[in-house]
């Protein structure tokens, strides 16, 4: 299994992924034209033919045994440049009066575009047949998530100061978002899925046009809705944990539709980016093999960027020994550099 940039001939594979991901996965709608555009945009980004603030680095997880796409993930170079990027910022206002013996704090939601210009890790999807107990040893989910940090570390100058990730918010057993029911519903003449779908298609200007511009006092929302602020869907908890381990934190920003948290960090502080290092490759058939992959390796070229698990750590402070299979998978040979991360 390896991560590589999406290619122009991946359209069928990507559409198959989109179909499997379903409606909840809004950045990957089952819309061939939209997906073709996305691939073209990504291909040009890797070819460095688009401005640095308008690059979507879209990766796929490839199963080399059959050439199928097992999943995908992406990095948005800078959000909010082409279309606005909105969040609510959870704030606090004090309502206080000594004479009235009153001191209360009221939570408020301010519409914000504070994250304009930040990078975003997004669009992570892994097909069900590559997940689960039987595939646990492959660590595909972690590969999809962490490969992006190696890419950012390698091409640090293409990215801004900060990175964020938007996490899916809470939905009840009927797949209804209490946050949406108490807030968005009053302002959008559509249901949650439709609003979310339009956002996924990048048609976000309606948000600014229809959303309340003044801050919302959360005290006017239902208790269920308030309880959703900054909370993730239970299926999203593992992903959130993984990001937290890298140092991403919730700073009070939430999704305007479902109230899910936006976690963020300074890119230079992300654990994987701080800890990854370059080593020189030595290919050898007799390299030792660990039972569980702990070491992630990535090539150092943009167009041919590749990342995968390898069977061991570095031999010394400057050398990593790869098996011929691993070297082939990463597209490297003896003397090339690779970036390594211990996980």
């Amino acid at each position, binding site marked *: 299994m390896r991560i590589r940039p999406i290619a122009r001939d991946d359209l069928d594979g990507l559409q198959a992924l989109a179909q499997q991901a379903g409606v909840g996965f809004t950045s990957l709608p089952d819309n061939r034209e939209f997906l073709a555009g996305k691939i073209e945009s990504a291909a040009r980004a890797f070819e460095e033919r688009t401005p640095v603030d308008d690059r979507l680095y879209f990766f796929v997880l490839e199963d080399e045994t059959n050439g199928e796409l097992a999943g995908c993930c992406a990095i948005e170079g800078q959000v909010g440049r082409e279309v606005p990027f909105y969040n609510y910022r959870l704030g606090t206002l004090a309502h206080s*009066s000594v004479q009235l013996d009153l001191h209360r704090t009221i939570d408020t939601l301010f519409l914000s575009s504070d994250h304009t210009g930040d990078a975003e890790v997004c669009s992570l999807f892994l097909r069900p047949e590559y997940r689960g107990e039987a595939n646990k040893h492959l660590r595909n989910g972690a590969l999809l998530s962490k490969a992006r940090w190696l890419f950012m570390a390698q091409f640090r100058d293409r990215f801004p100061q900060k990175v964020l990730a938007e996490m899916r918010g809470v939905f009840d057993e009927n797949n209804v978002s209490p946050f949406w029911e108490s807030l968005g519903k009053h302002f959008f003449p*559509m249901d949650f899925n439709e609003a979310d779908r339009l956002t996924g298609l990048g048609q976000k200007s309606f948000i600014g046009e229809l959303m309340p511009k003044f801050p919302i006092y959360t005290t006017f*929302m239902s208790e269920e809705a308030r309880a959703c602020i900054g909370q993730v869907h239970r299926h999203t908890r593992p992903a959130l944990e993984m990001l937290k381990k890298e140092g991403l934190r919730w700073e009070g920003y939430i999704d305007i539709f479902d109230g899910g948290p936006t976690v963020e960090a300074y890119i230079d502080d992300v654990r994987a980016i701080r800890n990854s290092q370059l080593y020189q490759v030595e290919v050898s058939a007799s390299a030792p093999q660990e039972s569980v992959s702990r070491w992630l390796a990535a090539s150092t070229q943009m167009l041919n960027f590749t990342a995968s698990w390898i069977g061991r750590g570095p031999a010394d402070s400057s050398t990593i020994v790869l098996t011929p299979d691993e070297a082939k998978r990463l597209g490297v040979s003896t003397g090339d550099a690779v970036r390594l991360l211990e996980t």
Partner: protein
Amino acid sequence: MLVIRPVTLADLSALEQLAEHAVPRLTNLPANRDRLEERIVRSQEAFESEIEYPGNEHYMFVLADDSRNEVLGTATIRAQAGAAEAYYTYRQETLIHASQQLNVRREVQTLALSHEVSDATLLCALSLNPRYKGTSAESLLRRARLMFIAQYPERFSRILAVAFPGYLDSQNESPFWESVGRHFFARSFQEMNHIAGVRSKSFIAEVMPQFPLYLPLLTPQARAAIGREHPAHEEALGEMLAEGFVRSRHVDIFDAGPIVKAERERLETFRRAAWHPVRIRPEHALPDAEPAMIANQTLSDFRCIVARYALSPTGQLMLSPQHAARLGVEEGRAVLAAPLSLPSAVDALDEGEM
């Protein structure tokens, strides 16, 4: 005989009773002896001062039955609603949220804190002994203030406003307060009203949410209460609408009661008020005529009564000796008269605000 006159310190106990029995209790008429005493003193100062333009004056009147030496009602004019502090209201506003992309256009209603009514002259703090509800005495108490303003226009604003107590439910709770103010103060409406009366309302308003409130986020009960008067004040509101006041976009910040406004020249009482020299005739010799409010022109001894609008062919107003005595006028002096009855009410929103 019933007469409107400026309040005096001798009226303090009666005022306290009126404050306590006001339905509902009024913020601007606190049932607190010290505060009421301050108000009387302040009112006396206003009546006795030479004033060229409206400021922080309160003119407080009482409705008195001198034959029984009884005070039956009170009403106040605040020359400027927000003279010393701002006068806070919520202004009902409409924002258009439109998206070309989605081909939708939505109107979103908000309530925004406003100080716009601060410059208006406010008719307020009216409480009447319930025995007299629905009588001409009630109209007199309410509208004698207009007769006073008509005589001393320099002391008041061109715009007059009246804030009516807002809707309360059968538990005497304000649905609007429960949905809005309570979140910020954690106190009941009645408690807050009490504090506001003893201190001041703007003092509390300063702790109110400063950003506009989106109506869709309020409870349906609270939304229904916006601009709705207290059931006990329906007739009073009707009378002021007939007088020529119009509903404004402003409502009270605590209970969302309606605030009506008018340019004073457009009010029936102002338009129809006329000066007449007095001619005194015995009661039995007075011709029948429609009732009118009749006021003398003595500032600090202001008197206003209801009597028949009996004019002589030469335009003199014929008064009985008792009425003339009550007004403190002699034959030949001028009085201001305006018909008590009003054309039927037109419930309209102020066009100037559209």
